[in-house]
Structures are given as C-alpha cells and as structure tokens.
C-alpha cells in the first residue's frame, strides 16, 4: 500500500471533498469519486486499488500533508498560484507562453472568499480536471509584482515544483539565467537594480533581471517571495479574508517620534503631492489602500498592484519628513530672467529626473532640455541667478 492510499483510508472516516476527489466511509462501504471514476459500496482493498496512483488522490495528499496549514497565507497563495482558489478562474497557460498570465487587479478574490477547493459542484470538478491537466502539461504561471512564478507537477504524484524569475525574463532561455535553489539567495539578488543601484524599497518596479529560482517546493517558493516582496503575501491574504488592517496617514504620522515627530505638520495638500510622487505604480507596485484618514481620500491613483499597501512605509515617512520641512519654509519671490526655451528646458530637466530617464538622454541630443551639455550651458550662463554656486 502506498503512502497516499494509507493516508486516504485514514482520512476517509471524516470524509474528503477536495479538488474533485470525494471519499466517504458509509454504512454500505466506501464511496470514491473523481472526475473520471465513480464507485460506491466498495471495500478497503477496492478503495486501495482505485486510489493507488490516482492523480486526484495524490493532489489531495499534496494539499493535506505537504502544504497543510489550512487558513494560512502560505496555503492561500499556493492555491491562488494554480488558480485553485476559486472555481472558474482560468489563468492556465502552457509552456513558456505567458500570454495567459493572470494579472488580475484589485479586488480579485476579495468578494469570492477562499473556497480552498472544498466547494463541490460541476464547476469545481471540471476546474480540478483542467487544472491538474495544465499542471502536468507545462504548468501554470502567474505574476506577483515583477515576479513570474510557474508551478507544475513533479514527475509523478501530486508534488509541485515552482520556478521564479523576473516577468520580463519569462521567455528567456534558462541557460541565460543564473539559477538558484536556496531562497536565502534572494535578498542579495534583489538588493541592487540592473544598474547596480541600491533598492531601499523592495516593491519599487526596479527588480533586476537575469536570474531564476528553480525546482523550489512550496515552502521555499513562499520564502523566496517573502525575501523579494516582504509581507506582501500576508497582507494580500488579510485583504482576501476581509481583514486588512489599514492604517491611514494621520495615525501613522501621530505615532512618529524623534526626528520624524514633525511629519504630522505635513499639510493634506502636500500629502497628496507626496503620494503622487512616491506611491503611484511607476514608483511602487503596492496598491495604496491608505488615505489621509478613513474619511479623507487622496486624489491620487491607488495603483493596480496585486498586493495592498496598508500603511505609509518607512521610506514614505522619511520622504514626508523632508517634504514637511520644505512646506514649513516661507515662500519668497525670486526674479530670474529666462527665455521661453530655457523655461521649457528646465521643465524637461525636472521631468527627466522625475521619470528616471536622465541616463537615456543621448550625449549629443542637445534638443533635449535634460542633455548634459545643455544643462551645463544653462549653469554657465544662469547658474548664479538660479542659486547654483559652482
């Protein structure tokens, strides 16, 4: 008797209804049903024969024993990855074609709740059959921030293997990517962007390319995601359960002490500018759920990210400290004489820095207001008027 069969017989007493597999121990013998088989009134040896090597039994055992952890964020995330969190969610894909990536935005799943494969009915049965077939045939992939996570069935049985890489590298030849198997390697890997700059904000859309985590088990996969995007799985899960504890700016600011104590003085209008500067999708992949307070929304796009931002982060608080000091300064009128083109050039320059495209401005493209020669020319000509010393 295989381990799967022994475990199944032990669990049959309490009844099983999971991902298309139904097993009951009735007064008339066992009932055993899968999308392919339906038997009632069978004895233990018949049950064992049916269960031995059955993919639905192996699948049940993977979730019951290998993953376990009912009600945990880890389990919910692994279910979500393979579209098993609700009937009818079809985000399957085959092979390395990511066209079908499900990249559902906010609210996905929140209304559905976490059915965790226990719902019966024809939809769930069809879903389980298609889902397992897809996992055997190349696997399924989903994106999480800039990560692309693929799950597939291991050689035989219900065990899964997970691979992770940058979503932009979805179609890359695996031989071109550095391979890792230890989740602990992730924090070093994502510490710097492709240009070698330190990434103080894990959810900034600047994940480096060129690596892959291969053949991870479920625990290692969640650990890897936790290193790359800390706490995103936990907060996503809370949101799906309707239990996300949002802390709005006013409360966060009031809690600050020491050098951050002053951030409570940031005017609401300036808070809006700060959120526009720091929290939109081009800067952070979290979806902003906090506002000034529960009754005062900020008129700034919240973002389309999969995982929520439940509170202003430490980087935002540190930025707010600088903005608060700026807002506290008296304004004055400064007179600077500039041509229309010079004003436009300054606009280009501000824009280039704000959009992080300074490095893209070509050396000899003097039409661009952010061109280095052009800016140096402006400094040579107007530097003193603009308060530049050098």
């Amino acid at each position, binding site marked *: 008797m295989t381990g799967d069969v022994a475990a199944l017989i032990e669990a049959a007493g309490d009844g099983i209804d999971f991902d298309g597999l139904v097993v009951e121990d009735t007064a008339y013998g066992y009932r055993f049903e899968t999308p392919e088989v339906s038997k009632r009134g069978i004895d233990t040896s018949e049950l064992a024969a049916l269960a031995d090597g059955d993919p639905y039994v192996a699948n049940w055992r993977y979730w019951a024993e290998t993953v376990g*952890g009912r009600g*945990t*964020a*880890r389990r919910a995330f692994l279910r979500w990855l393979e579209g098993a969190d609700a009937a009818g969610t079809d985000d399957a894909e085959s092979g390395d074609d990511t066209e079908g990536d499900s990249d559902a935005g906010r609210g996905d799943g929140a209304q559905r709740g976490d059915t965790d494969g226990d719902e019966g009915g024809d939809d769930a049965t069809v879903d389980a059959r298609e889902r397992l077939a897809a996992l055997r045939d190349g696997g399924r992939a989903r994106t999480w921030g800039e990560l692309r996570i693929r799950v597939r069935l291991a050689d035989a049985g219900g065990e899964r293997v997970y691979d992770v890489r940058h979503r932009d590298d979805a179609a890359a030849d695996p031989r071109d990517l550095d391979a890792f198997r230890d989740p*602990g390697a992730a*924090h*070093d890997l994502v*510490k*710097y962007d492709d240009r070698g700059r*330190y990434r*103080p*904000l*894990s959810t900034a859309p600047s994940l480096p390319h060129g690596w892959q985590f291969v053949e991870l088990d479920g625990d290692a996969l969640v650990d890897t995601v*936790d290193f790359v995007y*800390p*706490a995103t*799985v*936990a*907060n996503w899960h*809370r949101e799906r359960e309707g239990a996300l*504890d949002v802390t709005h700016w006013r409360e966060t600011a009031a*809690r600050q*002490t*020491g050098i951050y104590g002053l951030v409570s003085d940031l005017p609401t209008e300036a808070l809006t500018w700060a959120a526009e500067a720091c929290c939109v999708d081009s800067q952070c992949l979290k979806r902003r759920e906090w506002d000034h307070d529960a009754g005062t929304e900020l008129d700034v796009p919240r973002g389309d990210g999969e995982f929520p931002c*439940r*509170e202003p*982060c*430490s*980087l935002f608080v*540190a930025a707010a400290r600088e903005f608060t000091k700026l807002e506290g300064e008296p304004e004055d009128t400064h007179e600077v004489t500039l041509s229309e083109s010079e004003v436009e050039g300054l606009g280009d320059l501000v824009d280039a820095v704000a959009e992080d495209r300074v490095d893209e401005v070509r050396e000899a493209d003097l039409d661009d207001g952010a061109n280095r020669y052009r800016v140096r020319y402006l400094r040579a000509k107007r530097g003193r008027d603009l308060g530049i010393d050098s």
Partner: protein
Amino acid sequence: MQALVIAAHGSHLNPGSSEPTFAHAETIRATGAFDEVREAFWKEEPSFREVLRTLESDEVYVVPLFVSEGYFTERVIPRELRLEGWNVSDWESDGTDADHATLSAADVEKTVHYCGPVGTHDAMGDVIVERARSITEDRDLADFGLAVVGHGTERNENSAKAIHYHADRLRRSGLFAEVRAVFMDEEPEVDDVATLFETDDVVVVPLFVADGFHTREDIPEDLGLTDDYRRGYDVPTAVDGVRIWYAGAVGTEPLVADVVLERAADAGADVADAIAAVRERTRSGPEATTGTATGRSR
C-alpha cells in the same frame, strides 16, 4: 511552532547596514532550531510593523540587533510591533541588563517574547574576544591592550554604559594586559588610543552592529591609521610607536549569531543544541572566555 525575529535598524541609504542581520539569521536558520527565522527592520522590509503577520508560529522570540538599550529597543520596536501593555520597567534593567518580557501583539494572535538587545548580553564579551583573536591571527592576547569603542553619550546614555559594562568584564577576565572603553564623542576619545595604553599592541573593537561610515571612515581616521580612509590602512598600523589592530564593527562577527540565540534561550526558547552548533561553526579558537573567567552574572 516557534519563530525568531531579528530586529535591526537597516538603512535607506547604506546597503551594507542589513548584511550582518541577514548573515546571522542565515546561520541560525541552518541550525533548524526555529521553525521560522525572520529579519525585520526599522528602515527596510519587512518592517517591525508587519513582520509578525508573516509568521505562522504562535511563539515568537524577538531579539533586537542593537548595541544598547535605549530609544529603539525601549520605544520604537515595542511600539511598531504593537506589543500590548509594554512598559520598559518589564525589563527591570538599569541600562545594561535587560532580559526579556512576554507580551501579546495587537494585530496577531501570538505570544511575543521581547528580548533585550544583543549588545548588552554577557556573551557579547565573547564576541569581542573572538573578534580580537581573529584580527590578531590568534596571537597571545595577554600582551595586548583592548580598546572597546562606542559612540558616546551624545546619542544615548545607555550606549556608553554598554561599552563600560563590557570593558569592565573583559578587564576582570584577565585575557588582555589592559582594557579601556573609548568613545567617538566623549572622553576618553578614540583619537587618543595610541597614548592611552601601556602595551605595544592595542586591538581596537568598535561595538557597532554593522560597518558604516563611523567604523569605515571616522574611526580609522580618528585613530590615526590613515589621513583618508579611501586610501586604506594596514592591520596592524603603527601609530606613535603603538601597533594598532583595528577590527571593524563587532556586529559582523559570525559569533554574534550565538548571542542572538542566547537571548532567545534566556527568554525560554529551546535552542541549546543550536547554540552548541553555532559556537562550533563560528568560533575560531578554544572555548574562551569572559564567561568562564568572570562567571556569568545572570
């Protein structure tokens, strides 16, 4: 299930700040003593605010990777972890002997054992010795002076207390010919190390958690090892006829993982095997040490 959280400052600007935290966490993870080991930061992620919810364990040991008791260990970390009913008197500390407090946190259903910082644990003395041994390549330390460097009182009164505490214990241990506490911004100053000691050789060990501009730039220049840290310096470097062996931040020493475990063990975590394994792996010389020489006081 039991989890360990190593709570550290981290940095928005210095990528090296969190490296010791990750390294010590990895060492402890490898022992398997905890079901989960997590790093948490004031300036990086996961934040103190959100780390507890990332754990499945219902028993959590939080060990601050900070040098001294003070603003961060007494106010910031408990507040951000949402430890209910926290009062600094729970530690019954005079500034250097915080032990642990058992509390609950408002946003999770877990028991949180909030431990005193790594820097003031007695076992940190062993780490200082280990650091001195490795930088001197196992020479006989009985001929050496030891300078334990702290930031000083301008930032935090307990910071100086922690330095004096370890210097006093190490002096009593008799492992060094001479032991002194020196500071960056109060007397006796790190600038005067070469003239403060009678010995021909002095090991200088900064009690800092990570290498940053203080330990990489300020202290080497203050010691007179170099006029410009960018040009580097030798170990040892002769300054006014005294050979200075500069060790860099003690927090990067692998044996710090042992101190983290000791903190958790003091709070009731079952980690005796892990402590033995970590000592085996991270200690270069024979079992030292200040503990056996002076007797552990707690």
